Every structure is written in C-alpha cells, then in structure tokens.
C-alpha cells in the first residue's frame, strides 16, 4: 500500500502559503525544545527501564507526560504546515530546536559554552536559513 495520497501535488503550492508553513515550523521548534527538555528530565528516571516500563513512564512521570503533550501540540501544527510545504524542507527545520535547547541550557542552567558549541549553533542556524530562504522560493 502506498502511503501517498493521490491528491498530493507538492508543485502546485502557493508561495505565500509555503512561506507561512516554513514560519510555522520555525516557531514550533521552540515547543520541541521545551518538550525535549521535559522529556530529558523525565528520562533520567528511566535509564535502566525496559521498553514497556518506558512507555508506562510516559503516562506516569509528570515531566515526561507534559513533554509528550507539547509534542502533540507541535504535531498538530506540523501537520497543518505540511499541507502547504515540502516535507524535505520542513522536516530538517526541526533541527532548530537544538539551538533553543542549547541556549536554554547555558542561560538557565549555567551549562558551559565552548567554541565548538558556538560553532554548532551558528552552523545549524545557517543550515536552517539556507533551507528556509533558498527552499521557500521553489527551485
């Protein structure tokens, strides 16, 4: 069974909607960052748990549960954005969440910042910018 809807025609997308889709996903990466932080917080309690215990933990450990709820909100917005944008552009944009996660760690939790991490942040932002601006206009 092919997962492709016969009605999907990525080339017939209106450029304004395409830009809006990119903007939605870029904003949504903040949600992903918060969700990932909460999940990481909860995951520390699961380092030796099996797959079943991990799944149960998602519903019983508050930060894990909150994290996945935020992921749910993100998914709704992401699906909305996918209607008007290319998957090959919108999916990699989620990597921007790494930037927020790192900045949060440094600002709020006094994690150390080093040249390698700064380079990483700058290069990720550059990659997202290339995809967002270069990929939004078609070819």
């Amino acid at each position, binding site marked *: 069974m092919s997962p492709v*809807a016969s009605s999907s025609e990525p080339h017939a997308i209106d450029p304004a909607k395409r830009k809006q889709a990119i903007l939605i996903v870029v904003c949504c990466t903040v949600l992903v960052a918060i969700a990932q932080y909460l999940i990481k917080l909860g995951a520390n309690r699961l380092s030796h748990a099996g797959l079943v215990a991990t799944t149960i933990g998602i519903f019983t450990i508050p930060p894990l549960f909150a994290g996945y709820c935020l992921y749910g909100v993100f998914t709704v917005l992401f699906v909305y954005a996918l209607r008007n944008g290319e998957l090959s552009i919108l*999916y990699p944009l989620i990597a921007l969440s790494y930037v927020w996660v790192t900045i949060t760690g440094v600002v709020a939790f006094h994690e150390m910042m080093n040249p390698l991490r700064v380079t990483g942040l700058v290069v990720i932002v550059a990659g997202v910018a290339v995809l967002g601006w270069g*990929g939004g206009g078609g070819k």
Partner: protein
Amino acid sequence: MTTPVSSMVVVLIGAVIGSIGSVFLKSGAHAVNRDWKSIAFNWRLAIGIVTYLISSVLFVKGMSRGELSVLFPLVSVGYVCTLVWSRLFFHEPITKVKLAGVGLILIGITCLGLGGH
C-alpha cells in the same frame, strides 16, 4: 563515559522510523478537510502519529545512556532519510540548496554533540 552500541542502534532506528512517520504525516495532512471524519478516520495520520511516538520512545531509550557527541549526529541521519523519502513519495526534487541546508545542519549538530552536554 562510552556509548553502548545498543544505544547507537536504538537512536538510529528511532531516527529512521521518525523520518518514515513524517512521510505518513504529510500524506495524511493532504487528506484532511473541513469534515471531522477526515481527521478521525485518517489512517495515514494515525500511522504517522504512532510511528512518531515509537521513534520518540526509542530516542528516550537510546539517549538515556551514552554520549551526545555520538548520539546527536545519529539523530540527524533522519533528516537525510527524509530528503530521500520526499523524493520517492512526493516527487520533491533533491536540490543543491536542500543538500547544503541539511549538510550544514548535520555538521552543526555534530559540532554541538562534540562540544559536550
């Protein structure tokens, strides 16, 4: 701390499954209209969400043990897969711009992972 191979495999599988999930999310997204049934009985969307959840569980599992310098780059393998799936299933061209963007993101995430935490 060293990274167990099992963590690497789990994260890698999570990344690939997540990218496949995004394919179902996109094809499901196109089937949604104003009728609530188009969401409630949307099997593509359902598969996409379940696949996404499975990949998240695998990430939680894999990330709980091991070094981020090894595990972060593995997560970003999913972005490369997505380029291929998008070409295969949605006929989205793999352009130089996309390759450059995803390449930069991969390098950036690797740097972040190497930088610690």
